[in-house]
Structure formats: C-alpha cells, structure tokens
C-alpha cells in the first residue's frame, strides 16, 4: 500500500524518530533535580560520566553505524582532548577556549594523519591499524615524563570560562556536558541526513556502487573520521575536567573497546543509542562493582548476553525488532 505512493517527499521526521531521544534528554535534564534526593555529588559525577561517554560513543556511531568503519582506536581522541587540558593548564593556560581549540585541532590533525593511512585498508585491517595508531599515542603519552608519564598528572582545577571558574560546580559541569551532548546530537543528526551523510551511508552499503556513480570513498570517509575525532576530542576535554586528572589510561585500548561496546549495546546507526548504551554500561558497572568483589566475572558474560539478546541494541528493543 505504502509503496503505491511515489515517495518524492520520502518519510519526513516522524514523531517516533524524535520520541525516544526527547525522552532521553528530558530524563538527563531531570538528573540534577533528582540528584538532590541522594548523594548529590556522586550522582552528578556518575551521570556526567554517562553524558561524556555517550558523547564519545555517539561520534563513534557516525563511523561504525553510518560509515561502516569499525575504529578500534577511538579513545585516542579522548586522550588528545584530555591531554590538551592537562598540558595547557600545566603551562598556566587554564582558559577553556584555547584548551578546546587544542583538543579539537589536535584531534582533527591526528585523525587526518592516521586516517590517510588507516582508510586505505578495509575490514579487519582497518580495525587493527586504528588500534595500532591508538596504541602509538598511548605509548607516546606514557613517555611524556614532563607531563606525568605513566602516572599522569593532577589538574590544578577545572578549566576557566572567560577567566571565571564557571565549571567549578558539579551541576555546572553536568549542564555544560549535557548541552554539548545535545548540540552534538542535533548536529550529527543533520550531518547523517545531509548529502554528505547520504554518501557516507551509501559507502557502507556498497562501496563499489558508490564509486561507480562517481564518489571517491576515501575523501568522504576521511572527513567523517576527522569529524568524529573532533567530537571525541571535546569529550576528552570534558572527561579531564570531570576527573581532575589526566593519564594514559584514558586512551588505553580497553577504553576504545568499551566505546565500541557502548555503541553496539545502545544500537548502531541511531545516534541516541549511544546515550542508552553509555547509561546501561556505566550504571551496570557501578552497581556490580558495588555489590560484588569479582564483579568483572559477572560483567563480561552480561555484556555477551546483552549483545546476543538485544540485537539492534537497546534502541531496537523499543521498536520490536532492530530497524
């Protein structure tokens, strides 16, 4: 029936497309209020972490879910963003502006340099080479003895905004992080629906088909890679401010693996799935580690079960079957 009408105006944003993301953001917006009912500082810090991890995972969804590019080195950008804060503030530059510029600029440069090589490969080679670049940066960070080396460094304080400690309060940092996540969500939604996003999605579907109509796969993927890197770099900036501490551990390969897991768990190719995934992942980790000494023994199998039984991710459950 539906097929009988030519879809010149193909499915515009249906209310359903917006319902789940709206509910998610509304819930996140209610967090500071709800936090007052419990251990406020703890709840805010945990939920800021959820928001920041969701931001990084959302940018990874652009690569995996929309571009079919399974990057196993995405935590490198978290590291670049975090070290931009750490290194600059150790030189007395505590202003957020230059720190963010360094986080984004450094991430884009690293994405371009590593992407030029990694994007020449496909499939499992791409996974391995992004992992290798991530490890390269990890070892570079451990070798930065002037900036704490293996041990990392404690930040003098949170970044300043216009010379003022606007980010000092836990609620303030949470709101800023949530605003960034909201902006990233809206921005990435537009990007994935744009001409550029359509090319990226088409390349995931069938690369040769896209080249046979005149698109050079490499260029579009490189731009997507840089864009995703920039967003994750901002997440790194926020993460450093949240933990007040920067160390090579932020960009370990385990972190990259966690990010992949979060997007897959939440549901690939939806963007807001990253929020669900981050919340489920971090809350499960928190709860299990609180009650069980050997919680990792339980966490691992739980992750496996979640992936097996929530095909299409957590977003897919609401839709009945993965879309």
């Amino acid at each position, binding site marked *: 029936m539906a097929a009988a009408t030519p879809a010149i105006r193909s499915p515009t944003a249906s209310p359903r497309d917006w319902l789940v993301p709206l509910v998610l953001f509304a819930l996140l917006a209610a967090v500071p209020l709800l936090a007052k009912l419990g251990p406020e500082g703890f709840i805010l810090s945990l939920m800021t972490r959820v928001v920041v991890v969701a931001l990084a995972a959302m940018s990874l969804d652009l690569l995996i879910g929309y571009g079919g590019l399974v990057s196993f080195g995405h935590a490198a950008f978290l590291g670049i963003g975090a070290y931009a804060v750490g290194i600059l503030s150790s030189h007395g530059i505590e202003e957020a502006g230059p720190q963010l510029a360094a986080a984004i600029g450094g991430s884009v440069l690293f994405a371009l340099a590593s992407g030029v090589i990694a994007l020449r490969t496909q499939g499992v080679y791409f996974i391995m080479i992004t992992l290798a670049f991530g490890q390269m940066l990890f070892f570079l960070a451990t070798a930065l003895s002037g900036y704490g080396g293996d041990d990392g460094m404690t930040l003098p304080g949170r970044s300043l905004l216009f010379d003022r400690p606007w980010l000092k309060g836990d609620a303030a940092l949470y709101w800023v992080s949530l605003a960034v996540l909201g902006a990233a969500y809206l921005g990435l939604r537009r990007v994935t629906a744009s001409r550029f996003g359509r090319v990226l999605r088409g390349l995931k579907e069938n690369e040769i088909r896209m080249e046979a*109509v005149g698109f050079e796969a490499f260029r579009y993927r490189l731009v997507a890679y840089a864009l995703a890197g920039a967003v994750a770099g901002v997440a790194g900036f926020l993460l450093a401010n949240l933990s007040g501490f920067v160390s090579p551990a932020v960009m370990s390969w385990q972190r990259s693996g966690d990010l992949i897991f979060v997007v897959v768990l939440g549901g690939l190719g939806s963007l807001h799935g990253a929020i669900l995934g981050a919340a489920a992942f971090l809350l499960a980790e928190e709860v299990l580690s609180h009650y069980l000494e050997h919680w990792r023994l339980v966490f691992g199998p739980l992750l496996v079960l979640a992936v097996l039984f929530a095909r299409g991710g957590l977003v897919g459950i609401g839709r009945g079957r993965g879309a």
Partner: protein
Amino acid sequence: MTEPLLRLEGLSKSYGALRVTDDVSLDLRPGELHAVIGPNGAGKTTLVHQISGLARSDRGRVLFAGRDVTRLSMAERVRLGLARSFQIISVLPAFTALENVAVAVQARSGSSFRFLRPARRDDALNAPALALLERFGLAHRAGVPAALLSYGEKRQLELAVALATAPSLLILDEPLAGTSHDESRGVVEILRALKGEITILLIEHDMEAVFALADRVSVLVYGKVVATGDPATIRADPQVRAAYLGEEAA
C-alpha cells in the same frame, strides 16, 4: 573519419597464469551501439572492468574523448561521462529505489561536502531521479528499499542509476540477464531510444537483442577480438560461427 569516443589500445590483463584479456584494441564511434559477444569466460566482464577503471590493466591504454584515462580511478572516469552497469547486480539495498537514483544525480550536481540540508527532501535531486524511474516504469516503486525489488526491477534500477550520472558512454554488462521476457523487451526499447543519444558498449548474450540493436559487433574469444563488423557480416563470419555461435549450439 570522426574521432572515436572510446579507443582501446592493446589492453591486456592476466590473473596469475591465465591471460584473460589479450591485446584488445577497439574503437567506438560517437553515437554507435557497439555489442561485444563471446562465450562465457571469454574475458568480457574483465574488459569492462578495465575500461571503467575497476581493474587495472597490465598493458595497454584507454582513451576516452581523446584523453588518456588509463590511470584514472573508476569514480574519476564516471565524472568524465564513462558509466557502467554490473553483470552481478549492484544496488544500495537499504536505500529506496528513488534514493538509489537520487544519489547518482547528487554525484554530478554540485559538491557532496554539504552537511546540513537534508538530502532526502532535495527536489533538485528527487525530480530528475523520479523522471528516470518513470522511464523504466519503476515510479510506483520509488519508496521501496532496493533490497525488496524483484530481480528484473533491480536490473532496471541499475540502468536508471547509470543514466542518472549523465554519461556520454554507457557500458552495459549483460543488462538482460535474468530479466523476464516483458522486462527485457522494455529494456531493449529503452536502449533503442538511447541509441544515437549516447554511445553504448553492450555486452550481451541475447543474440536476438544484439542483432536487433547493434550498429557493430565485436567477438571476443579467449580474451582476443577475433572479429569486428556490422551484424550481418558477423553473423556470416565462419570463424565466429565456429568459435561462438557453434558453442551456443553445443
């Protein structure tokens, strides 16, 4: 004599010890429909890959519109007007029929490094795409994901996609394979209408269609062009009868 639109000079390609195309030279005149026939495994598809840039040639040159394109990528050649279809169907399965064509229109209309406006609602892309679907009688299937189209419809969709790139040379690798009788009649009619408008290199097994449509026919056997000429001459050529039409009878 007019300058050929496509000139192949001594194209060769081997896979290991197997010489799949062997010193193929061929000229395509502007506006002609040139058919290439030959038994299975003769190297026709490999030749299409070499012309379109999907496969690198070991030796030889490809000249398109007077320009040496041998070292250009497939995408670059398409943007110059050299489009192709695939023997093994190649569509974007999760995209609707309309979007499959619209993305090809997009490839030739302005930059695709545009990040904000929704592409699906861009009538500058949708309108020409829908017109092409109409031409193939697929307009009523515009909103259907390509994966759900019938085999014959996918073949037609692929033709629409190739035409959407606005080619001056269209290479079709067995466009009738697997289509129903009605569908293949429809495609033959479309090819007849395209004749003269654009230059076509047609790889096809359906002899009835080939001899009805082609201005000239080349015969490829074991990677070599053994004969080129008008349909009547080719039909009568004893070497062709032995090597190719003979095999058909066997």
